[in-house]
């Protein structure tokens, strides 16, 4: 192929390839904004929505732009506790993003190890791992969450544990299925013939070749984790109600959707949508750039 042979540092080249898609740049800008908001939430929020002392139930359910009795204006309105929606969204973003990313990373790491080990070693190891995966996958998320809630109590760390418990098996199975195909290829055979250590074969040779499908799944799963957290919150199994994530804000506002107080659910919904969309736009392009097989 007519590949332009330009001399560039790998990072410059990477950036050029990434920047080829304008849509991905928009996604990156949005993601940067979202991350900045998440990090800076305590600085830029008009109110600390988790500090109950700053809330006033008398200001509850104000419409966007309405001013409270004390003259404060809430640009995106307030929820049923008098929580400023704008601040709530800033902080909620922080929690949702954190929970989504943390649980995906842990679940991915665990699933990856189990999936690779199962595929590489085969035999009874494979059988054992896959049966555990079967159990895990058929256990309903809400039952797991309920048990964990009963045993561990409520909190951000606990919800991450719950999400990881729910999700790792999914990765394990995906990894295993692509690793099974990869394992049959010659380069693994070659690596084995070279008598490389097994860990080295698994992680240096098998792993990188199983990654592309996994990246697709993982980006979807960050979004999935955020949505799952929202669903658990909807079922009353999520985060403490005083420290709402985007999902909890949405589910709290959910009951007001039919009654016309749309903003309690609508704006967090938009924030969630933008966040997940940004993650995916960036991830899509990253995948294309990182995947040598897709290079033009």
């Amino acid at each position, binding site marked *: *192929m*007519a*590949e*332009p*042979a*330009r001399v560039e540092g790998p990072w410059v080249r990477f950036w050029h390839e990434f920047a080829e898609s304008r849509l991905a740049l928009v996604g990156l800008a949005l993601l940067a904004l979202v991350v900045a908001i998440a990090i800076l939430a305590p600085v830029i929020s008009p109110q600390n929505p988790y500090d109950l002392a700053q809330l006033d139930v008398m200001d509850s359910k104000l419409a966007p732009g309405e001013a409270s009795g004390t003259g404060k204006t809430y640009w995106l309105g307030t929820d049923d506790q008098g929580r400023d929606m704008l601040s709530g969204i800033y902080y909620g973003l922080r929690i949702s993003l954190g929970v989504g990313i943390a649980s995906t990373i842990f679940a991915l790491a665990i699933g990856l190890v189990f999936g690779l080990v199962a595929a590489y070693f085969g035999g009874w190891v494979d059988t054992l791992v896959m049966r555990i995966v079967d159990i895990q996958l058929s256990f309903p998320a809400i039952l797991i969450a309920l048990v964990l809630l009963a045993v561990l109590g409520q909190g951000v760390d606990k919800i991450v544990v719950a999400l990881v418990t729910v999700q790792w098996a999914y990765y394990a199975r995906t990894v295993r299925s692509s690793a099974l195909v990869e394992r049959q290829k010659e380069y693994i055979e070659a690596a084995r013939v070279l008598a490389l250590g097994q860990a080295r074969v698994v992680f240096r040779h098998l792993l990188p070749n199983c990654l592309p499908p996994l990246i697709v799944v993982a980006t979807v799963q960050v979004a999935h984790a955020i949505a799952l957290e929202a669903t658990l919150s909807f079922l009353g199994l999520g985060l403490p109600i005083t420290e709402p994530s985007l999902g909890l804000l949405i589910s709290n506002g959910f009951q007001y959707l039919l009654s016309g107080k749309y903003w309690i659910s609508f704006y967090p919904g938009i924030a969630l949508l933008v966040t997940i969309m940004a993650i995916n736009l960036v991830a899509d392009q990253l995948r294309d750039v990182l995947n040598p097989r897709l290079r*033009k």
Partner: protein
Amino acid sequence: MSGPPLLSVDGLRMHFFTKAGVVKAVDDVSFSVGRGRILGLVGESGSGKSMTGYSVMGLIDPPGRLVGGRIVFDGQDLTRLDASAWRRLRGNRIAMIFQDPMMTLNPVLRIDTQIVETIRAHADVSRESALARAREALARVGIPSPDERLRAYPHQFSGGMRQRVAIAIALVNHPDVIIADEPTTALDVTIQGQILFEMQKLCRETGAALIWITHDLSVIAGLADEVCVMYAGRVVESGTVAEVIERPLHPYTRGLIDSVPSRNERGRPLRQIPGMTPSLLELAPGCPFRERCARASAACAESPAVTEPAPGRRLRCFHPVDA
């Protein structure tokens, strides 16, 4: 040799329109090949030889596009054909064989499926008679017990066998032109030789024209009748194999010949052409080889026109190598 050639390519241009700019992958390429003749297309990787092959097949994908020239096959200009007419030619009257036999066969389809579909895409025949032809085709390329092998999957074949299957598929409809894109590069040397020999034989027997694309001049030397040397999307020199190899005119051809290990000059280090192939992206006008050429002069900033230094020879250089 008389009459019009079977396939003639004239002034072919194929450009990629990327976001970063225009890549002139094929830039004013002309050649022709007659029945039973073998044409070698030689050049380093990135010289546009494969793209020329794909252009003739009508397999150019966006952002690539044919922007000029004619491809006349059996009296028809292919560039004017619509997509479906072109498709009916492909695999039927013009066939192509790819470089890597490990990748060209679909791993999840059985061999019989892959051959039969080629036959049935072009002829309304029953599955049974297509299977019979498939068996013949396999036998013709020297695959033992073709009946059994028909029901196998590609991964059950060795590399050489896979390439034979690919060749069988290319030949199954008795094409008039075969474009072979480095089909032996990925194989080991003994099998290379066998396949080269067999291809040559098959072409002579069937009277098909063969375009052999390779980076390896030595392959061409024993195989082809004519040769086109390509550089940066252009044909820089062409002629009969004997003449071009005996008496290269273009400095690039010369360099290529010098870099081939030769029996007479054992012990002497191989001479390499200095420098690298230029990026084809927004290539400046002028001779693209001038950066690497010992003979380059100020004149080379202009594109040299095609000259005909001898009957049947064509050249694109201001400073040909002295004979």
